[in-house]
C-alpha cells in the first residue's frame, strides 16, 4: 500500500511539472500582455514594468526562474491585484468555493442516491418514471439557466433568499441547487440502474433465503455493491464542483476561485494563471487518487498492490 501511494505521488508531481511547463509556454504565446489598458501606458513606464517583471529576459530564462521559485513553493505575486500573493488569492477564494462545493457534493450524493434508490425500488412504477423524467431534465438544463431562474423566482420574486453572497446558511440553498441538479440527476440514474442490477443479483436472493430483513439486505448487501459506480463518478465530480463553477459563482456573487480562473487569462495575469492552473490540476489528481483508494477499500476485489490475496 505504501509503495502504491508513493508511486502515485511521484506520478502526480511529474504530471504537475509537465503541466506547468506547457502552461508557461502556452501562456506566453498568447498575444497581448498584462500592461495594456484602454488609456495607454507611456512607453517608458511600460519598459519599467517589463523590466520589473523580468519579461525582457529570454523566455527560457524566465521559465527557469519560474521553476526555481516553484520548487521553493513560491508562486509569486499577482500581476493585477497589487501586493496580493498568488497563494493568498488562491487560499482566500478557494475557501468560498470549497464551502459551497462540499455542501453541493454532500447534497448531490445523499439526494442522488436516495432518489436513485427509490426509483430502483419502485422500478417501472409511476414514481420511477417521474424520477427518471426529472433526471433527464436535470441533466439537460444547464446550471446557469437554473441559477438565473432560481435567483429570479426565489430570491427576487418570492424573497425567500438573498440574491447574492454566501454569508449565512440560507445563502447556500440556491447556489447548491444550481450546482447539484446535474450531479443529482446523474447519480440518481447511475444508482437506479446499478441498484436494479444488484437487486436482481443472485447474492441478494441468497440473502433473502437466509431470512434477513429487507432493510438489512438493502443496506448491508445491496448498497455496497450498488454504490461502486457512484464512487467512481463522485471522485472527478468532486474536483469539478470544488474548483468552482465560474458561472454559478458569478451569478450568485460568490468570491470563489472560478472567476479568477477566467479573469486571470483575460488580464494576462501570468503568475495567477500559473498558480490557479497548477492548483486545479493538483486537486483533480488528488481527487482521482482518493477515488482509487476509496474504490479499493470498498471493493475487496480491487487489488492495489502487486501481492495477491
Amino acid at each position, binding site marked *: 500500500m505504501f509503495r502504491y501511494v508513493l508511486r502515485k505521488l511521484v506520478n502526480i508531481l511529474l504530471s504537475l511539472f509537465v503541466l506547468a511547463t506547457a502552461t508557461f509556454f502556452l501562456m506566453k504565446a498568447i498575444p497581448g500582455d498584462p500592461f495594456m489598458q484602454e488609456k495607454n501606458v507611456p512607453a517608458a513606464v511600460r519598459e519599467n514594468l517589463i523590466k520589473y517583471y523580468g519579461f525582457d529576459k529570454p523566455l527560457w530564462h524566465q521559465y527557469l526562474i519560474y521553476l526555481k521559485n516553484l520548487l521553493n513553493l513560491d508562486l509569486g505575486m499577482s500581476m493585477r491585484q497589487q501586493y496580493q500573493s498568488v497563494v493568498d488569492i488562491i487560499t482566500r477564494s478557494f475557501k468560498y468555493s470549497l464551502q459551497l462545493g462540499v455542501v453541493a457534493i454532500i447534497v448531490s450524493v445523499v439526494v442522488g442516491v436516495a432518489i436513485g434508490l427509490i426509483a430502483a425500488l419502485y422500478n417501472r412504477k409511476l414514481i420511477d418514471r417521474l424520477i427518471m423524467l426529472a433526471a433527464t431534465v436535470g441533466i439537460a438544463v444547464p446550471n446557469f439557466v437554473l441559477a438565473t431562474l432560481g435567483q429570479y423566482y426565489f430570491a427576487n420574486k418570492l424573497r425567500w433568499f438573498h440574491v447574492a453572497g454566501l454569508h449565512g446558511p440560507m445563502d447556500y440553498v440556491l447556489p447548491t441547487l444550481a450546482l447539484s441538479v446535474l450531479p443529482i440527476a446523474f447519480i440518481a440514474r447511475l444508482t437506479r440502474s446499478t441498484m436494479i442490477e444488484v437487486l436482481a*443479483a*443472485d*447474492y441478494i*436472493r*441468497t*440473502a*433473502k*433465503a*437466509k*431470512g*434477513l*430483513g429487507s432493510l*438489512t439486505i438493502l443496506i*448491508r*448487501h445491496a448498497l*455496497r*455493491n450498488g454504490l461502486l459506480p457512484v464512487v467512481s463518478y463522485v471522485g472527478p465530480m468532486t474536483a469539478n464542483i470544488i474548483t468552482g463553477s465560474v458561472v454559478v459563482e458569478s451569478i450568485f456573487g460568490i468570491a470563489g476561485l472560478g472567476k479568477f480562473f477566467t479573469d486571470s487569462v483575460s488580464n494576462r495575469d501570468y503568475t495567477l494563471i500559473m498558480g490557479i492552473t497548477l492548483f486545479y490540476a493538483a486537486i483533480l489528481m488528488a481527487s482521482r487518487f482518493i477515488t482509487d483508494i476509496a474504490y479499493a477499500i*470498498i*471493493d*475487496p*476485489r480491487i487489488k492495489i498492490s502487486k501481492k495477491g*490475496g
Partner: protein
Amino acid sequence: MSKQETVLSVKNLEVAFNTRGGLVQAVRNVTFDLKAGEALAIVGESGSGKSVTAQTIMRLIPTPPGRINGGTIDFKGQDILKKSEKEMEAIRGKEIGMIFQDPMTSLNPTITIGRQITEVLMKHQNMNNTQAKERAVEMLRLVGLPNPERRFAQYPHEFSGGMRQRAMIAVALSCDPTLLIADEPTTALDVTIQAQILELMKDLQHRLGTSIIMITHDLGIVADMCDRVIVMYAGKVVEEGTKEEIFKNPQHPYTRGLLRSLPRLDQPKDEPLIPIDGTPPNMMHPPKGCAFADRCENAMRICAEQDADVTTHSPTHASRCWMHSAV
C-alpha cells in the same frame, strides 16, 4: 423427529407468472412429500418448474410478477403459503436452508465469508459477535475447508469454485435447519469438485440428519445421493418413486427417454446418443392434455385431449400416463 415423519408436504401447488407476453404457468398441480432425514431429488429439464417449486417452498418468488394460484405447502405442521413475510424471515435460514447453483454470484463479493455466516447466526440464534464467529469457524471446518480461521476473514473471490460451494453449504447449514434445498449445487462446478461436494453433502446429511431436496437435471447425482426421485415435466410431476424403482423400472415415457439418453460406460465411443425428439411446450399456452404427448412415441389420441390421472405402481412409485391409467 422420528425418521418416518413427514417434514414437508406439497399439495396441488400452482404457480404462475404474469409476464408482458401473457401468463406463464410454471407449476401446475404439483404434489409430493418429504420425510425426515430423506434426500429427495427433483429431476427435470430447464423450464420444467423444478426451481420455481423449490423457491416457492421458501416463498422466494417475487409476487409480482409471480402468483401462487392454489395448493398448500405444509412444513412441520404449518402452512407456508399462509405465513406473513415476517414469519417467513424467521423460517428462512433457520428452519429451511437453501444453496444455489452458481456460488460465485450467490455469495456477496464485498462481504467476507465469515460475515456472511455470522449474520445468519446473529439473526436467528441471537448470538453475539464472538459466539457467532466461533460457530462460523466451526462450520467452515465442518464443510472441509482447511485453515478455517484464515478463511473466515477472506472474500469470495479468494476462494476456488469448490471452496465457495462449501462455504455456501456452511452458510445454509449454520443454524442446523430441518430442510436443505439444493438447487443444482454442482452444475457450475467441474466434475472432480462435484464429486467432493456431493460427498460432503452426503456426509453432512448423515451427521446432522437434515432432509434434503436436491434439484438436478443430472441423473448421475440422483443415483449417487438421493433416496427418492420425482420427475417433473412442463410444470407437472409425471413420475415419482424410489431411486431403484425409477432407474430399474421407469414407467413414464419421459423418464424412460431420460434414462435412455444417458451415456453409458459400456457404449462404443462413436455410437450416437439417443435424445428425446422435440422441445418442451410453451408454458404460456400449455397443452390441454398431456404436455409430453407431442414428443411421446406411445402417444394416443386421448393424450392430447386430457391429462391422465395418477397411477400407483407401488406404495412408493406412481406415474401419470394414459398407458397405465385405467380408462
